[in-house]
């Protein structure tokens, strides 16, 4: 089911920059969609449209088959939560608890309901023990989690994130991505995430869209999109490391490959079968 439908939207900043030039995109309920693209291609601008923060100058966006214009902005904010890149822009309250409570409070909920939601959101992101900490006392990754909690406390159906892994160490990246995957698969939240880290995409995401100069160049599963190496290169991107390796093997060493393995798991499966297969019949282990 298409939960969010972007129909040919255009956007122009005050200074005349044409940031979106007719973007169309269908977002399915429950999917985990990545948005890739070079710097300045309009990823952030597109994300800001997805919850009505920016109004397109042309085209429209449908949320559950109804145009954004039929909703109040509060209704949209409630359904589509957005987390920006810099957590410091978003954590303005003195303590973690207060910050997460900010959204529910603005929804006009009762005190007990607010407390309930804050606790729930904080435990979802694993930050419950930090509820009374000052925001300044948190590490970068923890701040990121609190930002996500702040949005989750409004119980959105759709979560939009702008480069959530930028500036984190590898362990932090994995931890945030696991959190998102859990929110997506266990709690059924549709997630849309802009990122520059191509290696993450095949591992975590169902689909990806590639933006280029204010347009969507291609949408599809990682297998589909990454199979077109020329296009990836054109969009200033790269294949995931593993795919690059397999591509080199295919092109330079003429290894026959129908589809390019993109993740470690896939590559392993393929290589194992090749290595074993080559030993014609000896299907046992690889120990020589």
């Amino acid at each position, binding site marked *: 089911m298409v939960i969010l439908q972007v129909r040919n939207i255009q956007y122009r900043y005050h200074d005349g920059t044409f940031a979106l030039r007719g973007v169309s995109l269908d977002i399915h309920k429950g999917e985990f969609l990545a948005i890739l693209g070079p710097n300045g291609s309009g990823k952030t601008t597109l994300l800001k449209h997805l919850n009505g923060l920016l109004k397109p100058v042309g085209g429209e966006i449908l949320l559950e088959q109804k145009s954004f214009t039929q909703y109040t902005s509060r209704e949209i904010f409630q359904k589509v939560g957005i987390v920006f890149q810099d957590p410091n822009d978003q954590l303005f*309250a*003195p303590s973690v608890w207060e910050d997460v409570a*900010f959204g529910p409070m603005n929804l006009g909920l009762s005190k007990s309901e607010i407390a309930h939601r804050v606790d729930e959101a904080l435990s979802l992101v694993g930050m419950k023990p930090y509820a009374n900490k000052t925001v300044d006392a948190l590490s970068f990754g923890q701040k990121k989690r609190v930002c996500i909690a*702040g949005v989750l406390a409004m119980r959105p159906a759709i979560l939009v994130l702008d480069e959530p892994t930028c500036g984190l160490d590898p362990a932090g990246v994995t931890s945030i991505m696991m959190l998102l995957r859990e929110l997506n698969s266990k709690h059924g939240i549709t997630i849309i995430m802009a990122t520059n880290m191509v290696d993450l995409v095949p591992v975590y995401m169902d689909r990806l869209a590639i933006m280029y100069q204010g347009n969507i160049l291609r949408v599809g599963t990682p297998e589909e999109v990454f199979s077109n190496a020329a296009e990836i290169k054109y969009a200033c991107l790269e294949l995931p490391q593993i795919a690059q390796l397999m591509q080199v093997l295919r092109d330079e060493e003429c290894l026959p490959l129908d589809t390019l393995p993109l993740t470690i798991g896939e590559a392993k499966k393929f290589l194992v079968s090749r290595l074993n297969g080559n030993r014609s019949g000896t299907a046992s282990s690889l120990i020589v």
Partner: protein
Amino acid sequence: MEFLHHTFSDVYARQNNWLTRVDVRVKLFYAISLLSINLWAKNMFIPLLFLSASFILLFSIKIPPMAILRSMLLPVLFAMLILLVKGLHEGEKVWLSFPILGYKVVLKEEGLHSGLHIGSKVLGGISLVITFSFTTTISRLCAALKWFHVPNTIIELLAFMYRYIFLLLDEVSTMWTAQKSRLGHASWKKTIQSLGTLGGLLVMRAFDRAERTYEAMHVRGYEGGGILTVNLSPWRKGEYASFIGMVLILPMLVYTGNIHAW
């Protein structure tokens, strides 16, 4: 980054000890009434009592003495200045006189007397304030101010400014180091110019950040309403007890403060 040496942090207030656990309203009551007594005191005994009591409290929660001394430094110098001015200006009875570079410096007894008195009040007052601030975080303070019906707008601004001062200080210190490493502070003139640039960058930063923060607040439903959510719990036994304790002690302190003595 030298200028960060004057900055501060609330690491001590964030610790968990018996003083930080005391309800902030009680602490505020204490702080305000003791400060008033300190102000009205007619002898040096009360301010010095406050000073030593504060030190004992601060030591009991293991605040490093250096941290206390650092915060007291400027007020102490101020107190000494007052002592000197008073000593030179007030009264008749000469206590000490000596020549410096051909000028005759005369220190007088009455002046030194009242200078010492004021100096002790400075020490007492500052130590009370430090005790309060070393045990209270800004978010608790905001909650207390709300309880005292300080207008919301002021509290929100207080919380907001406090939060972003640290962040901007960090950013500015990076810019400052970047300037320094390209010799932007090689001469006095360049330093002044670089400081202007730094201030300009700071204003631009603040403006952009304000916009982004507003966006982030807006998508969480902010339309110009309140920001702070925390309300303090109603008073419990502990708070009543400490409050009554204060009511009992206060008259004694007021009485002692009114004794005319050294």
